């Protein structure tokens, strides 16, 4: 989340989409309710089903699964057409005014410029800013009165006036007449020094037009891109009736009515957005909409991802993804010949109008990386050996979930450790995962219950004869449950909160760190004894815990926070020193000379000399904004709302005087606030430093340049891999052009022509938690059996009544369960034809109380879902694939 759970209470408007928080985050859902009750906030819920969240919404729209970009793109179009735009914010805090290179083309036919159909990849050199600085004046005769032209009225002009810094320094900030702007602006842009150079780097002095009139300005391109997303088009893609869409668009954008900046709207989502072959781009569309409306960085605003596991945020922060190291440092690859090459590749340089300033916080990457290596390898990491950079693995290919199992199925991956997750159940196309495990040499499962992965050999359809043929050696390790271990959870709001063990693990069960430590120590012993291809990284790994075979998590947490390896001083903190061995107070103290060690720079400040800040339970909230600065600890630097500089106007004054998060204190010449300012503390508004300090531009990216995303700088609606219709925007390029499908005998994809004409989506229930509460009688009592939610009309068509069994088939498998016949899913009209949606909760498999007592059909739901994934985040498409349904 850019904001946090409690902050939702500050909102005026909620768009909940791609998530069902009442179902999956009932505790956090108290804050949307709070906003409704205390602020009269309005809640719009958009979902393929009328959910528990929808039950308390003010407005519910039923959308076809996988058409979210069309809906959000329609909202962007509506906001632009109705001038519900935060002009000051957009001009000063986003790249709306930046010019894009000549030759860049919008995907009117479904493809951006630079597509190579052979490699199915883009040459992204045109997806870049133009070099050249301010072209605002040359964009046409400056009209001081402004506002008469196309996009903006007086509000636009006034906005630029108030934008004291940027506007004043870079010209008068007014837009000229539309036509003149177009013609004149082409010249200076083309003459820009870097314009002819297609080098794949961002220019250092970006060309920009504060009138936003230049045809190659990001704003004009955005306007053109989404002008195709008319209410009619949105309706024909999403199935939402046109009038309903307009009602929602009017309501959501109403917070920026007449350009008033007081109100804030939040967008709340979860895996209903990520689990598509264009999931990342759905979130991008939401981010663009929120930037356009000026909602990012503000109390009650933001783009807020709800994490689906209690510590999935922590897992991600700590590098639990194949292509990142802790703290979102990029993973080295074989091209990184040495540490310097690696750092140069991953450390961005500022790219902005030269009159503006950019903090470009990632410029500190070398400090984070060196401190990380010091934490990993201790004294073995020295300047002379590139801080042991070569001990890190260099990834030569993608090790994403689906690709990993694909390789196991092809016999390339020989073993698998499943630690606290149920691989057979999690991935799409479960049959392929089960078959893959049959081909592996060994499997280690650490769990608290016997699960489908550790018993993959008894998956339905495996005959006793076949079971005897399976050679995979399976080792089961008894893990500890969540209440049996201490440590931290990092929640969706980025809070590190310490928890204590309630009971000891039973029997032979062991806490995770003991199991991992014992494996590690054993492996190290073997390397020490027998040598090996590359023992150095293992032998030199820092392992200085007081109990090496069972490290205390307090020690690990302190190691992650980081400490000084020699006495430190810091220019930005005059007078302060940190003694050797002391815990670091925060990441501002990290050094790139090897004098600091820090396991994850983002967590630096969580366990300092002042103690374990992550263990705090202070309930003071002086501002009343739900900041609770002394409760737990929030990364980064204990700030609760990220990019909070954007909660102020360019002059440093809060947009809303009642929700004051941070502000510029002229007397002290510093940023002050109720929250920790997410900004360079002494950068005055006049220097026009952008609030989005993690981007090299310093501003929010409406246009995401170069290689930021695989399929384009603006999101475009593509159909799911299995779709009931051809994409109404461009039928010839129906699906995401850069995704690559898999080609083993078990990777099958269905089409409507084959009879798969029902849209199927999968989800969780509040009564169950993934695949392990099916072992708990309490949860089983609440929802005892698997089911399929079927619209009344469809049930009638196939002759099924509630409680009777149905068979759901996809190109890959069949799934049998009882039907829940409901009015909560309605038939939809998509591109002129009637389309049904069904939904299947994911919780049941072939081990559990109901399963073991013979009450279910023993099918994992993910037998149904396709092996297809998002090209940016590699998340599989569990939502919105094609199925057929019949009475079983």
């Amino acid at each position: 989340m850019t904001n946090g759970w409690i902050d939702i209470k500050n909102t005026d408007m909620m768009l909940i989409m791609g998530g069902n928080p009442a179902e999956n985050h009932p505790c956090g859902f108290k804050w949307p309710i709070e906003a409704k009750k205390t602020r009269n906030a309005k809640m719009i819920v958009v979902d393929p089903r009328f959910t528990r969240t929808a039950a308390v919404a003010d407005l519910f729209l039923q959308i076809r699964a996988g058409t979210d970009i069309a809906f959000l793109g329609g909202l962007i179009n509506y906001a632009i057409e109705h001038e519900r735009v935060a002009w000051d914010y957009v001009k000063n805090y986003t790249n709306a005014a930046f010019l894009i290179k000549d030759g860049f083309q919008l995907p009117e036919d479904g493809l951006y410029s630079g597509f190579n159909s052979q490699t199915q990849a883009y040459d992204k050199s045109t997806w870049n800013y133009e070099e050249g600085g301010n072209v605002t004046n040359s964009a046409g005769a400056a009209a001081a009165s402004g506002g008469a032209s196309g996009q903006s009225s007086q509000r636009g002009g006034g906005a630029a006036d108030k934008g004291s810094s940027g506007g004043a320094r870079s010209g008068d900030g007014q837009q000229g007449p539309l036509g003149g702007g177009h013609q004149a602006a082409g010249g200076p842009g083309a003459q820009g020094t870097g314009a002819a150079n297609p080098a794949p780097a961002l220019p250092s002095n970006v060309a920009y037009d504060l009138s936003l009139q230049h045809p190659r300005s990001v704003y004009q391109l955005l306007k053109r891109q989404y002008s195709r997303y008319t209410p009619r088009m949105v309706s024909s893609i999403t199935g939402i009736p046109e009038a309903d869409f307009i009602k929602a668009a009017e309501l959501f954008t109403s917070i920026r009515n007449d350009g008033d900046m007081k109100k804030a709207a939040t967008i709340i989502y979860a895996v209903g957005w990520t689990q598509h072959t264009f999931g990342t781009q759905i979130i991008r569309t939401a981010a663009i909409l929120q930037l356009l409306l000026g909602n990012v960085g503000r109390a009650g605003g933001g783009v807020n991802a709800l994490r689906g596991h209690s510590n999935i945020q922590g897992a991600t922060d700590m590098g639990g993804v194949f292509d990142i190291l802790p703290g979102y440092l990029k993973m080295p690859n074989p091209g990184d010949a040495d540490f310097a090459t690696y750092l140069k590749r991953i450390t961005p340089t500022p790219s902005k109008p030269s009159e503006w300033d950019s903090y470009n916080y990632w410029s500190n990457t070398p400090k984070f990386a060196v401190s990380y290596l010091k934490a990993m390898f201790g004294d073995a990491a020295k300047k002379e050996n590139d801080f042991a950079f070569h001990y890190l693995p260099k990834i030569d290919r993608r090790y994403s979930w689906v690709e990993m199992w694909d390789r196991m199925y092809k016999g390339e991956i020989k073993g698998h450790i499943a630690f606290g997750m149920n691989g057979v159940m999690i991935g799409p196309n479960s049959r392929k995962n089960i078959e893959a495990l049959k081909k592996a040499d060994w499997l280690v499962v650490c769990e608290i219950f016997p699960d489908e992965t550790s018993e993959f050999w008894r998956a339905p359809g495996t005959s006793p004869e076949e079971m005897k043929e399976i050679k995979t050696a399976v080792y089961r390790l008894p893990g500890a449950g969540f209440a049996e271990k201490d440590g931290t959870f990092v929640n969706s709001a980025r809070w590190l909160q310490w928890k204590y063990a309630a009971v000891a693990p039973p029997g032979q069960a062991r806490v995770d760190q003991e199991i991992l430590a014992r494996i590690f120590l054993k492996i190290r012993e073997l390397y020490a004894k027998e040598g090996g291809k590359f023992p150095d990284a293992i032998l030199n790994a820092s392992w200085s815990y007081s109990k090496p075979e069972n490290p205390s998590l307090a020690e690990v947490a302190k190691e992650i926070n980081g400490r000084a390896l020699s006495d430190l001083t810091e220019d930005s903190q005059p007078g302060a020193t940190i003694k050797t061995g002391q815990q670091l107070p925060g990441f501002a103290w990290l050094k790139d000379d090897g004098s600091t060690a820090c396991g994850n720079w983002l967590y630096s400040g969580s366990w300092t000399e002042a103690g374990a800040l992550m263990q705090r339970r202070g309930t003071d909230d002086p501002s009343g904004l739900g900041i609770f600065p002394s409760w737990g600890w929030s990364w980064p630097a204990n700030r609760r709302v990220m990019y909070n500089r954007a909660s102020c106007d360019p002059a440093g004054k809060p947009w809303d005087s009642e929700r004051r998060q941070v502000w510029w204190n002229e007397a002290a010449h510093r940023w002050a606030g109720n929250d920790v300012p997410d900004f360079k503390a002494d950068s005055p508004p006049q220097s026009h430093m952008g609030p989005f300090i993690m981007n090299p531009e310093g501003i929010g990216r409406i246009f995401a340049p170069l290689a930021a995303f695989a399929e384009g700088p603006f999101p475009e609606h593509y159909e799911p891999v299995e779709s009931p219709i051809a994409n109404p925007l461009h039928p010839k390029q129906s699906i995401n052009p850069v995704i690559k499908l898999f080609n083993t005998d078990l990777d099958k994809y269905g089409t409507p022509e084959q009879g798969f004409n029902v849209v199927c989506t999968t989800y969780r229930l509040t009564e169950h938690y993934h695949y392990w509460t099916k072992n708990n009688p309490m949860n089983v009592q609440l929802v005892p059996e698997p089911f399929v939610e079927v619209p009344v009309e469809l049930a009638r068509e196939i002759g099924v009544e509630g409680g009777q069994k149905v068979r759901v088939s996809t190109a890959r498998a069949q799934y049998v369960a009882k039907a829940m016949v409901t009015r909560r899913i309605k038939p939809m009209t998509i591109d002129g034809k009637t389309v049904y949606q069904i939904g299947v909760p994911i919780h049941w498999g072939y081990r559990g109380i109901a399963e073991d007592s013979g009450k279910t059909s023993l099918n994992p739901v993910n037998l149904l879902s396709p092996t297809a994934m998002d090209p940016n985040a590699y998340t599989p498409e569990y939502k919105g694939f094609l199925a057929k349904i019949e009475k079983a």
Partner: protein
Amino acid sequence: MATEQTLQIKEISAHRGPVPGSGAVRELEVAKLVDVTTCIGCKACEVACVEWNDHPFRETVFDNTYQTMPTTEWNYYNLIKFSETQRDDGSLMWLMRKDQCMHCADPGCLRACPSDGAIVQYTNGIVDFNQENCIGCQYCISGCPFNIPKFNQTTKKVHKCTLCSDRVGAGLEPACIKACPTGCLHFGTKQDMLQIANARASQLRDDALFPLPNAGVYDPQSIGGTHVIYVLHDITKPEAYGGLPANPRIPPSYVIWKYLAKPIGLFIALMGLLAVFFHYIFTGPRLSQPEPTVEREEQL
């Protein structure tokens, strides 16, 4: 059941004579407020109830609904009732109402109960069952206008929500309230709960964009009000919320039984006794008659 030190008994079923300690301490009436308009049906209250009361699990079966089971049970006091309904404009509503004992001011169960001390009503409004005095006649079940008390076939006793009288007696809120994640459940004095409920209902009625003109508070006066009150989107259609009666009444048979048939019966019984007595006085005891043996022999 709570200890008598913490809760004052106001009335005792089928108990003649004064209620011990009645009127000694004046206590505020408590109430549970369920804001149905913010309930998300998460069932945390169901789980908390089962856990606090240490209830054994019961087997459930899929029944074409998210609802855990059709009705409350002797070991399941608290059940969210899920109902799909449609507004007049055709839009869908998915209503989720927490169903449990309403703790009526005029409790039908207590009226119907023939066993001394099996059902009590505390001065704070809680109606509580005392299983050791329960004779298993199940009159309370038919006396309840909300279909709440349930019979345990094994123990032959009747059970229902106690409003956590044990917790409330110790100064705690009921378990369901404690577990509610959204704050749709409130607990406090009846007066406070009514105030919060009415404020919420008027907020819903007066909303500028999405007004609910019929929003209101369910506190049925036909049984003297209840100690569980609801905020409903539409107070004119309580039946839509899983069969909440618009005008709950204690079945007349029980009123007749208790206030008419029972006294009359007792009166008739008394009359019978009196008749016997006076018969004895005026007629005297029945004397043995001489046996007419001679005549019989003669006949033979």
